[in-house]
């Protein structure tokens, strides 16, 4: 009896599969590997999921905690021959090697239809376009080097307006220290120390030095007096950091600003989420400074989705639909508002973004001020050695000459 039933069921499925009836009814499945697990992040990615489901797809969420763990999972699946539909990476060179191995599908069809050559900022386009083809869909732009300040802490030190130049910034740090406030909130972890160094490099050296040192890896630039001044300025910031800084998480450092115990923090625009959660108001309780010179460069970091190689027509269709959804102007605004970043295209309505994001959009509209994030200009292992130098420079005694030599060795390989 049961055997009979099973046979009927099996033949019914076989029939349905053969005629394609069942397939046509099924939505487009898209499994997406990502690492956005915190409150604001998961709310942001839900925007993509909802929009994709509304467009007739079925979003299968595969969140892996931690960026490198999620990327390893995606790469292992690709190598193992069972890739997901899409996977999250940083806007960097992380995925260039798998492009080289021919393991990703290009998304030129969607990109040319939506005129990405025109709408994307140049550094972002360069990061996702390899050998003339688009291989990744950028979804946001994070500027990792904002300078945040606590209005109350600055007032306590008698500072009535935020600094606009490096000299004013250093003078303000002195005033804060004299007032008994932690001048600079820093989490002493490798990447945060590196952010601080990058902020000094972009604000003291400007876009030109940033590009020639990290981009061209130009020996003359590395040995130039300007770069030496960057190193000296970075080291001179050390007395402004409190004793308990080593090992501190970035959000604990932001909390010092929220509690008005510290004056400034260099951190990406994701720090906004912490202020918002603490019910702080932009412009009143805290503020953001994009840079300390009139032409301060806007560093374009962010995230992209890549689409592993598959010949399955359904999967390719799902991949293209994902790209369409993720880069759609309305979805972009909604997503980036929750993520704390800014949209990847300039042709969107910015009125619903917060003040800092609007400021960022305005700066970014000037192509001369757009610069790529350091991770887009060098391989991961090179960037790793650069960060090792920065953290040693910050934590152990090192002369400027030694530092310059080590930078040259790391960058020139």
């Amino acid at each position, binding site marked *: 009896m049961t055997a009979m039933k099973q046979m009927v069921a099996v033949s019914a499925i076989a029939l349905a599969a053969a005629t394609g009836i069942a397939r046509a009814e099924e939505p487009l499945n898209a499994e997406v590997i990502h690492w956005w697990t915190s409150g604001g992040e998961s709310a942001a990615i839900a925007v993509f999921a909802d929009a994709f489901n509304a467009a007739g797809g079925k979003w299968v969420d595969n969140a892996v905690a931690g960026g*490198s*763990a999620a990327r*390893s999972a995606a*790469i292992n699946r690709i*190598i193992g021959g069972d890739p997901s539909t899409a996977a999250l990476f940083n806007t960097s060179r*992380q995925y260039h*090697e*798998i492009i080289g*191995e021919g393991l990703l599908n290009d998304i030129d069809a969607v990109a040319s239809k939506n005129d990405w050559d025109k709408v994307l900022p140049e550094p972002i386009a360069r990061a996702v376009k390899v050998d003339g083809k688009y291989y990744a869909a950028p979804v946001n732009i994070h500027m990792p080097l904002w300078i945040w300040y606590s209005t109350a802490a600055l007032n306590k030190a008698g500072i009535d307006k935020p600094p606009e130049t490096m000299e004013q910034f250093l003078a303000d740090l002195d005033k804060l220290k004299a007032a008994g406030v932690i001048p600079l909130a820093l989490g*002493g*972890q*490798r990447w945060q120390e590196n952010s601080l160094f990058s902020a000094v490099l972009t604000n003291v050296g400007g876009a030109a030095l940033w590009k020639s040192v990290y981009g061209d890896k130009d020996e003359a630039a590395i040995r130039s007096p300007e770069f030496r001044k960057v190193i000296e300025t970075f080291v001179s910031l050390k007395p402004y950091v409190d*004793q*308990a*800084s*080593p*090992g501190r998480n970035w959000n604990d450092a932001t909390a010092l600003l929220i509690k008005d115990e510290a004056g400034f923090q260099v951190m990406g625009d994701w720090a906004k989420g912490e202020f918002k959660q603490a019910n702080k108001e932009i412009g009143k309780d805290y503020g953001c400074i994009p840079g300390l010179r009139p032409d301060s460069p806007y560093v374009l970091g962010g995230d992209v989705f890549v689409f592993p190689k598959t010949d399955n027509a359904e999967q390719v269709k799902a991949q293209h639909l994902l790209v369409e959804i993720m880069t759609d102007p309305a979805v972009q605004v909604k997503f980036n508002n929750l993520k704390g970043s800014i949209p990847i295209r300039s042709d969107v309505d910015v009125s619903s973004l917060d003040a800092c994001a609007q400021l960022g959009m305005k700066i970014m509209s000037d192509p001369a001020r757009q610069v790529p994030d350091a991770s887009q200009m060098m*391989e*991961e*292992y090179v*960037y*790793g*050695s650069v960060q*090792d130098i920065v*953290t*040693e420079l*910050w*934590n*152990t005694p090192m002369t400027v000459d030694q530092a310059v030599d*080590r930078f040259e060795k790391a960058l020139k390989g």
Partner: protein
Amino acid sequence: MGAEFTRHVKRNLVAYIALLPMAAVVIFAYLGTMAWSVRLSFSSSKLLPRSDFVGLNQYVTLFDTSRWLTSLGNLAVIAFFFLLICFVLGCLLAIFIDQNVRGESLFRTVFLYPYAMSFVVAGLIWQWILNPDLGIQATMRGFGFSGFVLDWVVNPRMVLYAVILATVWHGSGLVMALILAGLRGIDGEIWRATRIDGIPAWRVYLSIVLPMLRPMIITSLVLLSISIVKMYDVVVAMTNGGPGTASEVPAKFIMDNLFERANIGLATAASTVMLITVLMVMAPVIYSQYFRKSGRAA
């Protein structure tokens, strides 16, 4: 000879078949992956494994990397103090408990308890205790001792000793348990004989009991050495290698290069160096264990 061999195989056929899965696991899962890692260390692999051959390039780069050299130096310091303190402390605790103290089982549990905790938890606890903003320093300053300083985890010169402190707290209970088990196996007659001879207790422990505990001592030293080489989680939980590179260890260097820096070639070169180091440390132990036994038999 041939017939004898066939008979031997036939008689033990079932045993051989039963051993096959184990042999396969050892050959493929342990030796095979080890060989594969060593092979990759001679390639230029970055994010994906490559099958080219670049000779010793990765090793040259490795020993030109200051973070790797720092890690090795740190490991040497940790190994020395951790082994020494853990072992001495563990023995003393075992001897203390062996004096028929009241509430023995309570002490035993208390001393062994840290070992039941994962290294991540142990690392976090000590990170909190030693953190100048939260731990002992903050508490003492709260009591009014404003000059009190205990900043080991944030002080590049002291951070290694903070790690050693946490690992000793974690590991000495194990040594105690092993040595105590050994002490309990010592024949009471020996104690009676030494008492009649009027030998002081410390001398008995040092010259008679400890040499008799050789297998326990070797076991505990091997277990401690293994936990040194694979030391990773406690450092990640406590300091994440910082401040700067002051508490970096080789295992963390390998993990970082393998996963975060997409540098498989360098990571496998580093793990091969660790493998050779372990073999070099273990070889004399294995030699003495194995050959002394067979020597005695002959």
